[in-house]
């Protein structure tokens, strides 16, 4: 790999971590604004929420993109097709990010959920994405033989993100004869596939890291990997209407989504079936930070998938829709699964062996996240029950949730602190590049990736 493009890929990771820190900070502010109305006047909730959501989504995308730019040349066995475009992409993303943050602080919105900034700022995002798409496909063209599952996942995630991003902006041109139901339906069709796309990018990354750690190329080419991919893809395409069961859109759309969503029980059953092996693998041999993160992500996949499946059953969704259980689902997955996998990748790229501080940060992060998740589920269950079963006014219902919202805000501090420790260490390791290939004997004890160091993978014909 060229030094310069490697540097740009790391640039993505560094800025991704920066976005995570800032985003999580605004999350902490937002959570306390639920408990103490009006606290942190300088950034009221109408600003802290979009700052939080956009920044943490930026973390997921930038960390995934940085990983793709980093691993792609190794996977393709050829250098990136256009290394300079990586820099262009990075600079474009950073400038856009800055413009988005500025517009939020100035109270200039105009977009919709997740992209609440003025829609013109979407143009550089699309251009940057096109550069990535071009670089990706031009580079993998040089690769011989059928693609492993993770390349399919990445390609799918990359193409579909572009599509859904454009679809999420269709409202800009639809100016007559519409109604709220179609408007919401098209919007959430786009968002359903949007989260599906970033999951493709993240799960693809997880598979790559796993392959790199184990040195075993089989799993990513196995029949099971492709079946899981096909299932994920089908859900991305047709499962989105589980977000809008109560919206009176065409019935077939929502019934289709219900049926498709239930196919994920197969995935859940498979995870449970293999749990023994997962636990054994987790407890055997030397464990690097990447190992730990990947293992933690499997636990979170199990918990969040079970929750997602339950709330995809309309009769249960009736109680959970529009409550904090949806937030538990959103943050449980974006933090527990996506963030955890991306940390595994960042630690792998930064060659992060498990130091004591890192292990403490890891434990704090996961422990606090568990409380955070449970508090949100508790809050959502109470809100859902009172909303559906009683006619109590909104503020009265919110009073009943208060203990849970306090638990949420307090454990949010823990999640934030854990993230800070992990981010700080990851940034330090990312910056200490020269050390990366030095394999000292005591380090190799704690770190399995030394056995297949990134250097030898660089050279290997794939």
């Amino acid at each position, binding site marked *: 790999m060229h030094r310069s493009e490697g540097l740009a890929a790391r640039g993505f990771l560094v800025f991704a971590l920066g976005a995570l820190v800032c985003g999580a900070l605004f999350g902490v502010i937002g959570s306390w*604004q639920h408990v103490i109305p009006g606290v942190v006047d300088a950034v*009221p*909730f*109408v600003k802290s929420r979009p700052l939080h959501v956009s920044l943490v989504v930026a973390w997921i995308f930038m960390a995934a993109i940085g990983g793709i730019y980093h691993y792609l040349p190794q996977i393709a066995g050829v250098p990136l097709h256009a290394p300079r475009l990586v820099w262009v992409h990075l600079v474009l993303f950073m400038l856009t990010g800055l413009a988005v943050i500025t517009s939020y602080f100035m109270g200039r*919105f*105009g977009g919709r*959920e997740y992209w*609440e900034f003025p829609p013109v700022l979407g143009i550089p995002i699309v251009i940057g994405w096109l550069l990535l798409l071009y670089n990706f496909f031009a580079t993998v063209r040089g690769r011989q*033989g*059928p693609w492993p599952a993770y390349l*399919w996942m990445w390609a799918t995630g990359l193409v579909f993100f572009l599509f859904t991003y454009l*679809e999420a902006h*269709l409202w800009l041109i639809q100016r007559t*004869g*519409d*109604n*709220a*139901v*179609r*408007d*919401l*339906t*098209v919007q*959430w*069709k786009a968002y359903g596939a949007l989260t599906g796309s970033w999951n493709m990018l993240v799960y693809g990354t997880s598979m790559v890291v796993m392959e790199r750690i184990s040195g*075993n*190329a*089989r799993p990513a*080419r*196995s*029949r099971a990997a*492709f079946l899981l991919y*096909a299932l994920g*893809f089908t859900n991305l*395409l*047709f499962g989105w209407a589980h*977000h*809008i069961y*109560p*919206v*009176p*859109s*065409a*019935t077939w*759309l*929502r*019934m289709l989504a219900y049926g498709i969503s239930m196919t994920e029980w197969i995935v859940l059953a498979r995870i449970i079936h293999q749990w023994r092996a997962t636990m054994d693998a987790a407890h055997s041999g030397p464990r690097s930070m990447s190992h730990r993160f990947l293992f933690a992500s499997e636990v979170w996949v199990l918990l969040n998938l079970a929750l997602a499946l339950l709330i995809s059953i*309309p*009769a*249960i969704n*009736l109680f959970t*829709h*529009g*409550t904090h259980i949806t937030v538990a689902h959103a943050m449980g997955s974006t933090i527990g699964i996506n963030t955890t996998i991306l940390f595994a990748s960042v630690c792998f790229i930064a060659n992060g062996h498990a130091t004591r501080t890192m292990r403490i940060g890891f434990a704090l992060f996961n422990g606090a996240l568990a409380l955070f998740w449970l508090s949100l589920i508790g809050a959502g269950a109470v809100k859902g029950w009172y*909303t559906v*079963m009683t006619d109590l006014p909104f503020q009265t219902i919110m009073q009943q949730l208060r203990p849970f919202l306090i638990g949420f805000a307090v454990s949010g501090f823990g999640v934030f602190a854990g993230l800070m420790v992990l981010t700080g260490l990851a940034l330090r390791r990312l910056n200490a590049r020269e050390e990366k290939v030095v394999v000292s004997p005591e380090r190799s004890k704690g770190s399995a990736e030394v*056995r*297949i160091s990134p250097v*030898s993978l660089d050279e290997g014909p*794939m």
Partner: protein
Amino acid sequence: MNAPFRDAHVGFGAIHRRVIFFGLVALFVLQTGMTWTLSTDVDDPDAHFSTAAYRGRALYQAFNCTACHQLYGLGGYMGPDLTNVTSDPDKGRAFAKGLILHGTTRMPALGLTDTQADDIVAYLEAVAATGTYPVRSLDLTPWGTYTQMTHAQE
């Protein structure tokens, strides 16, 4: 260590994968076209966005009401769902407009003008004409669905 990095040939070939892949994509294209055109059975003329409702929708976004409010349960969680606020017999148009203009101790006054508030109310009225949320009854079916999901409610 490079040896294992060969593509394992497993029963399921690349050709099959491509057929399935493009088959799914074709179905998706079909579904997309149908969603954009046929996704709603709403036929109440009040539900169609008027020019004022379009302006109201843009203002709803410009002031980021969605940070705190939901429509059909979709949005932020600090404030109440607004789907039927204008059609609720205890609340209604004037109540909604008053809140939008002046806020409460919990909802900030966002500095909208009188005409802007009227436009947002027009938007909320168009939303209210599409249906009812939340569903407050327990008519569950053995299939895990509920009756109101498939039958428009009154």
